[in-house]
Structures are given as C-alpha cells and as structure tokens.
C-alpha cells in the first residue's frame, strides 16, 4: 500500500474527455453521494432552515404555528445584552483550548502505544474505557476524586502545603478548567484510536529506510509520522472544534452550567431557553450565532489546510 502525497486532481490530464463520459462520471458522483445528501437534506438541512426562520420570531414551540410572531432582529439585539449568553459564548471560546491539548496527548499516546509498549491492544481498550463507561459513572468518579473537602486531589494538595485548595467544580474560577480536564479525559480514547488507525496507515518501509539512514526516533516522528498524519490531525481539529462548540451533555450531567453560570455554554443556554423557558424563537437565534461562528472558524481552517496538510 502506498500513501504517497499525490497532486491535487485538477492537475491531472482528464482521460479522453468526451462529453458522454463526463456525464456518466457526474452521474456516478451523484449516485455515490446521493444517499448521504438525501439523508442530510431531510434530517438536518430542513430542520436547520426551519430553525433559521424561527430565529426572527417570538414563538414557543408548544403553542402551535398560529401564534408565531415576527420580531425581526429583536432576538439578536437582545442576545448581545444577555449576560448569560455572552458568558456562555465566552466559556465556549475558553473551552476550545481543550481540543489541541487533547489531540497532542492522544498523538503522543498513540505513538507510544503502537510501537513502544507490550500488549498495545490492552492499552487501547484501557484508554478507551471512559468513552464506553456510563456518563454517570464517569461523572461520579470525577466528583469523588475532586471532592472539595475529602477528595484525594485536595488531600494531596494540602499535604504538599497548599493552604486553600480550590473547590474545583464548586468554585466559579476552577469549574470550567475542571470540566475541560474531564472532557479531555473522556474524549482522549476517540482521538487515540483515530490516530492509531492513521499511524497504521503509514507504510512500515518508510521507517525502515529512515532507520537505515540513521535517523533518530524523534527525527522519524518529525519527518514521517507527523507529516503523514496531517490529514488525520486536520480531521480531528475540525471535528474537535465543532464538537467542542456543540458540547452539552457533559455540562448538563456534571454542573448544570453552575456555579453561577461559570460552566454554561451556548448549547446548554439554548437548551434551557428552548425546553425550560419554552422560548423557541430566542433559542433559535442563539443557534444561529453559534452556527455563524463555527462556520467562520471551520472556513478559516479549511483555507489554511493547504499550508500544512499533506494529502
């Protein structure tokens, strides 16, 4: 198998480009992508457009369509004065930091597990366990480890002379970092196995050749592993950031956005607004802001990929 870097397709000469052949080619393209496009249309795109339209209304979904009231840009004006929303959005941006940190750890562990330990299979299962385990169990163990009064973490901190160890999840300053740490811990397994799949995709003869040339392990990582993993890294970065912006379940289970909104994120705020306060229109406008931001960030990454991603 060869994973060599190929030229973008536009540089290749089209093979005997008769019109008919092009039509067949296009038909095949729609045939292959069609099912996905259809599914996306029905299950995401239509609901999304619906949501988009609702963001310009005052409406509660329980009341029926006859009570929709057009409100123009009111929702958006209100959003920019909504302290909880702005706080949540800010938290989302801070939380982004968890993505590259988690990926770096996953990459290092991935390299170690594939070639520097005994029983690599066992390690893959072990590091994947938080992903499989019940969310409740994950949250409970975390809560207990970081128990503000009797937890082992604070016990250790007191033992080494820290006077007032943080109250972690119950501390408005430390709650968000705590959630981020937990997030990295849970999602590590996913990035790890995707990285391992990527590492397995790198032909072994490249390393053999490098070893013969006398390249150190670190040099091999820099010149072979890392560059050839860039498509995987790109994927993990893009989906990681999108996923990070969408995070909800963990916050809901662990802190309910508290204390004092210090861990609230946009989707959590949106969920509360839509399903607890029953303000569907206003909640939709939050989604729209989120969507525009994520779209912009992803777009930038997309444009930037040509500078560092090797296909």
């Amino acid at each position, binding site marked *: 198998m060869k994973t060599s870097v190929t030229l973008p397709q536009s540089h290749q000469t089209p093979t005997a480009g008769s019109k008919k052949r092009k039509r067949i080619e296009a038909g095949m393209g729609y045939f292959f992508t069609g*099912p996905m496009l259809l599914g996306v249309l029905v299950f995401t795109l239509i609901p999304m457009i619906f949501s988009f339209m609702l963001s310009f209304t005052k409406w509660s979904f329980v009341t029926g369509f006859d009570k929709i009231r057009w409100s123009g840009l009111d929702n958006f004006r209100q959003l920019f004065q909504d302290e909880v929303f702005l706080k949540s959005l800010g938290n989302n941006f801070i939380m982004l930091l968890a993505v590259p940190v988690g990926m770096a750890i996953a990459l290092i562990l991935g390299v170690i597990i594939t070639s520097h330990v005994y029983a690599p299979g066992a390690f893959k299962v072990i590091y994947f366990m938080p992903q499989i385990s019940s969310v409740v169990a994950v949250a409970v163990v975390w809560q207990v480890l970081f128990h503000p009064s009797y937890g082992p973490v604070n016990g250790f901190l007191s033992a080494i002379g820290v006077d007032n160890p943080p109250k972690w999840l119950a501390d408005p300053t430390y709650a968000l970092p705590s959630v981020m740490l937990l997030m990295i811990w849970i999602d590590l397994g996913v990035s790890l196995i995707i990285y391992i799949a990527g590492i397995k995709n790198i032909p072994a003869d490249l390393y053999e050749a490098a070893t013969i040339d006398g390249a150190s392990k670190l040099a091999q990582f820099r010149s072979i592993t890392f560059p050839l993993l860039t498509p995987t890294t790109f994927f993990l970065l893009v989906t990681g950031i999108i996923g990070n912006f969408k995070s909800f379940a963990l916050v809901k289970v662990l802190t309910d956005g508290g204390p004092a909104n210090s861990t609230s994120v946009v989707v959590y705020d949106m969920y509360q607004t839509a399903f607890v306060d*029953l303000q569907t229109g206003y909640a939709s406008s939050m989604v729209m802001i989120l969507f525009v931001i994520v779209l912009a960030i992803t777009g930038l990454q997309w444009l930037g990929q040509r500078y560092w991603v090797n296909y």
Partner: protein
Amino acid sequence: MKKNVFALVWIIVLLVALAGCGNSNNTNGASPTSGSTAAPEAGESAAPSAEPVTIKVANWSPAADMEPILQAYEDSHPGITLEYVELADNGDSVAGMKKLDLLVASGENLDVVFMPGATDYSQRAGLGLLAPLNDLISKEGITLTDEYTVDPSVDGKVYALPDTLENYFVLLNKDKLDAAGLAVPTEWSWDDYLDYAAKLTSGTGPSKTFGTYFHTWAMYWELAVINQEKDNNLVNNGVVNIDSAGIRQSLELRSKAEASGVAVPYADTISQKLAYRSEFFTGHAAMIVTGNWMIGEAGGSEEFPATFTTAFAPMPSNSAGQPAGVSIANGNYVGILEKSGHQQEAYDFIRWYSTEGEQMQNVYSAWKKQDVDKFIAGVKSGAMSPDKIDEASLAYVIKNAKPAPLSVPPTYQGELETAFTKETELYILKQQDLETTIKKAQAELQKIVDANK
C-alpha cells in the same frame, strides 16, 4: 459475499431514502388540525355530548398507577372513554413535561394535561396553551376556594384545578434528636432551627453528621419568605421582593449555617450532586426542610430502608412569637388544553379527579374535604416499616399546617429562579457579600420583570 451484503445494504438505503423523501413533503402539514397518523380518531370535531366521547389524559405517572382511577371514572360515566397518555415511564415529571410539549407541538390532540407545580402551570397558562375554566366553574356554581386549599388563579383567570397539595415542613431524625436530648419542636423559629442544627452536629471527616442539609432548589434561598402568609414569592404582583427583610434573613440563615459548619457545605452539595433523600436517610444530615411527598418515604423504601424513626416539625417562623407551620402551598395542577374539543366533558373529569378520584391513590390532596386521618392511616399501611414514622408529630404537623394562599408565580418564574440562584451561589461561595448579592439580584430580576411586561 461482501459484495452481496453491500448490494443489500444499498437497496435498503435506497428504499429508506425514498420513503423518507416522499413523506418529507408533508413537513409543513403538521399544523394543529392535521393531527397525527397515530391518532386519527381523536377530537376531529366537537362531538355532541350524547355520542361517545374520548378524552385523552396526559400525565407522567406510570400507567399502572393511573389506569385504575380512569377505569373507575369510565365505569361511573358511560359514554366517556379515557385514553391515557403516559409521558414518562419512570414517573420523572421533568422528562414528562418535555414529552408533553413535544407532543403538543406536533399536533397531538390531548384534552387533559397534568403539570407538576405552579411554575410549569403558570408558564403554560401564560403561553395560552390552557383553556380558561372560569365559565365552566361558574356554570357548575362552585367557589374554588371553598373546594381547594390552593387558589390557582393567574391574573384573575383559572386555567387549571389544584390536584395534589404540596406544602413544606421539617423532617427530623428522631434517634439523633433523642440522643441529643432534644424534644420534637412544635413552635419554633429559624433561630431555634439553627440551634437544633448545632446541637445535632457531631463528628468530623467523611462520617460527620451535619445538623441540616439545604438542597439546591430556589426555595432553599427564600426560606424566610415561603413561610409567609402574603408576598411569599420572588416577585409579587409585579413587585420584585429581593430587597426585603425576608430575603436578607433567608440568605443570612444559609450563611450562618454554612459558616458554623452545621449544614452540609454548599460546595459539597453542588460538586457531588448530593441528593436530599440520601443525605437524610443515611443519617448524614439530621434535619431537612421538605414537602409532604416525603411522608410515605419516612416509613422506608426499597432504596432507603428506614433505619431510624422520622419525626415531623412544622415550618419554622421568622421570629419567636410568630406562628410556625405557615408554608406556601404548591402541588400538581390539572388543566384542559385550549384546543380540546371536549371542554365540558374534560372539565367534569378533572373536577372528579381532583376531588374523589385521587382519593383512590392516597395522595395528599388540595381538596378541602380530604380525610386526613384516613390519609395518614393509608400512608402507614403502605409503608415498609410503619413504626418508623412518628405518628404523633406527623398528625400534629398536618393538622396544624397553615397552607398560605400561593400567589401563583408569574409565567416567567423559572427565569427568575435561575437568575436569583446565580447570585445567591456567589454569596454562599463567598464571592460577594450580602448587600452586593441583594443589589445585583434585585436589578436582574427587575430586568426580567420588565422584559416580560
């Protein structure tokens, strides 16, 4: 072989995609009238009452609990069929409300809906989801306050009848009370409460017994307000009640209990997601302020077997000399959807249910004619260890309860509570002082009130 599997999958995909596509054209057809394919028979037109009528009743209680009651109504009212819609399979009212809202949004023709508390009720009344009942009530010729302990009026209109009654009192671990040489209180104030809490606190480390535990609910930040006859909410008649003696006393009560170490630390409560049942029944906290849904559980449940005797004390007053036992009365509410085609039939049913009907379930009812002794006997007969319920103090608390007329919360009560709790959390976690908390909370709640004018 792989190819065959793949071909099969592809065919499935195509079929499925076609099915999904063909139908998606109806997306916009989910207007209230189109109803659903699942329930074609319900309420297509307002049938004359002589014809058989089907009323759809939605509640989060398990079907096994509800069906005997509905059956009894059908038996005594020929021509009426009650169809039960179970909103949650484990009695979870929060999940149940979400399901209810989704069902209503997708055009399900429900008639009678239950709501677990005044907040959920007033919110849906404010959205125009519920039918006003005033005409039906005056047609029947009753005065609601003669019939029920709770007045369910929202801005002068009645959108639901009170079902169960929920008021608040104190549960005490009588074994620990006896060990500390304390009597079960009958008249007491919050100062006495703190005093009791201090005397009941013992031990250190993870096995420490705390005098009391305050749960995370908003009511625990307004304890010296919810025990008032009047103005017992965060916002009363449009006036924000934060900058008041009652809220100051409530917050100081919490702060004193926290600072002196007689209450479970708030940091533990939120970071460990502590549950009030386990705090009390495992003996970790000796007293809790709670409501009457806990009466039956004092006799032990499968989850928490009763290992000690539970005594009951009335809600403390704000200062010595004031009567104890005053508490706002909340509870479940039962209303009729505005879109229901059978208003009269549905009304007849909810009147029956909220009075005679629910007696079959032995719940504490907002109906004034409920027989309290029978209720207590019923609780005891259903308990796993009836002798662990201290009957004398229970009877005293129930009979001397003074349910305060609840000013049904504004339609945006949930938002008020969230905003208020945010500030009080900063206070108890020592991030801001009392006056800052009062000032900020007052301003934020005022903002919510103004936005909802």
